């Protein structure tokens, strides 16, 4: 029973990580129609910003997380405004731009912090104990903060005029512009929210998992699969699929063996996608999204 609860918490932590990543990735894709290959790099940069503030500057971890969010959001804003925005309708160009940014981000962290995995200390360290069950504070915090961040994005998108505009832009960009909406103002903002979410994820989870210049690629790949599985363009789908993927990864790891997790996960996703090509909640296919 203890093992089951611990595995569930572990799975939800992984799921929270994938969900935050998938949410940001889906926002950028849905609103800007940009496949952001640099999303994993923003995760890594967020992790290193938090690490730098906490371990090298010596300030509290909370400040590290805040700096990571604001820092990655600012970089995302500038990157969208000055780079992506120039060729926003050229999908091949934006792929090259984000791939390039991904490499630059990883290389920059490599130069600044070295190839060794960073020993991130100063995150939350305590543990809840009920009977034989151990639940690290950090995991509960990750799940809680991820839940809050997802709720905040939901409120922004569905309860504010800016969110309404962002969703209108997603549906029909030309018509949204004809209502006076300005992509040059709204797109950098949307992209900043997306990259800020990646930075938040990195700052939250890398003290628990690992922090090295290229760890973001793997997390992004799994989140990307969750996005596809949830139905490209469906934000609730992306979140639900991410949690499922995290739980499957954790349970296979505990009860079958860690090395089996990727194999079972990816095979399962492939089978599901053959059965339901538009994903769990998707109402459109990848091609016409």
């Amino acid at each position, binding site marked *: 029973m203890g093992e089951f609860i611990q595995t569930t918490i572990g799975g939800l932590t992984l799921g929270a990580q994938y969900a935050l990543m998938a949410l940001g990735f889906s926002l950028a894709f849905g609103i800007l129609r940009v496949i952001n290959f640099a999303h994993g790099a923003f995760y890594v940069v967020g992790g290193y910003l938090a690490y730098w503030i906490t371990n090298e500057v010596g300030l509290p971890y909370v400040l590290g997380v805040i700096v990571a969010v604001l820092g990655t959001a600012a970089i995302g804003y500038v990157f969208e405004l000055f780079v992506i925005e120039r060729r926003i309708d050229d999908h091949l160009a934006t792929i090259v731009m984000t791939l390039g940014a991904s490499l630059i981000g990883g290389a920059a962290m490599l130069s600044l912090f070295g190839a060794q995995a960073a020993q991130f200390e100063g995150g939350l360290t305590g543990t809840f104990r009920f009977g034989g069950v151990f639940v690290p504070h950090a995991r509960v915090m990750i799940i809680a903060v991820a839940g809050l961040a997802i709720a905040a994005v939901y409120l922004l998108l569905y309860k504010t005029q800016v969110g309404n505009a962002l*969703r*209108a832009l997603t*549906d*029909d960009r030309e018509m*949204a*512009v*004809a*209502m006076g*909406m300005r992509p040059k103002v709204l797109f950098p903002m949307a992209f900043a929210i997306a990259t800020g979410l990646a930075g938040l994820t990195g700052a939250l989870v890398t003290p628990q998992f690992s922090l090295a210049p290229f760890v973001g690629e793997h997390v992004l790949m799994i989140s990307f699969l969750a996005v596809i599985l949830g139905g490209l363009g469906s934000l609730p789908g992306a979140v639900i699929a991410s949690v499922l993927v995290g739980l499957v990864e954790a349970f296979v790891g505990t009860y079958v063996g860690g090395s089996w997790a990727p194999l079972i996960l990816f095979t399962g996703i492939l089978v599901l996608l053959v059965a339901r090509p538009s994903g769990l909640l998707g109402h459109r296919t990848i091609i016409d999204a």
Partner: protein
Amino acid sequence: MAESLLTIEGLCVRYGGIEAVRSLDMEVATGETVVIVGANGAGKSSVMNAVMGMVPTAEGRMTFDGREVTSMSTADRAKLGIRISPEGRRVFANLTIEENILAGGYTMGAKDREASVAWLFDTFPLLSKRRTARAGTLSGGQQQLVAIARALTARPKLLLLDEPFLGLSPVAIGDTSAAISVVQAQGMAVLISEQMARPALKLASRGYVLRAGALRRSGDVAEIRELALSEDYL
């Protein structure tokens, strides 16, 4: 004649090598309703979209409300008071009716926007009843009303209606005509394009007939009706 709101001089619209509109002169006065009649491919949408700034003006000049708008961006024209209900309606399919109408008021302050939305729901009870329905799930006639209401939120000076009656049932045509009458009563100018000119001619006072991108005739509705009848537009 009342003061001119929209003036188009020598408008040319091109898509690559295709000349869709050729040196067109056109005028819409403040508060006036004007119809553009033409067969499929005559260039009606090209004119509408050029006025909204959604396709570039290759040659010619356009002034709106006393300002030159020829090379002004679409969003700036929207801000000046031009709105379009485009061909095919193009409502925001994943937004509710209410959210569509709110989106139309993006450039307004929150208070004015709320007041405008309340007025629109008063005016269009058909929309009010279904305000939380996703626009993509509505019938063509309901979507046309949403497209018009969305274009009205910001209380524009000029409303462009590109084939608003296309594909609608007789009942929906009646609803749409009624909606356009509301716009006229507000003192807004309306430019309607139509192949099937009958309902539009009832609403307009003047018209232009386009053929293959060029102006064939302009005049008051009686003249336009006569020409349209003889050339089989109705």
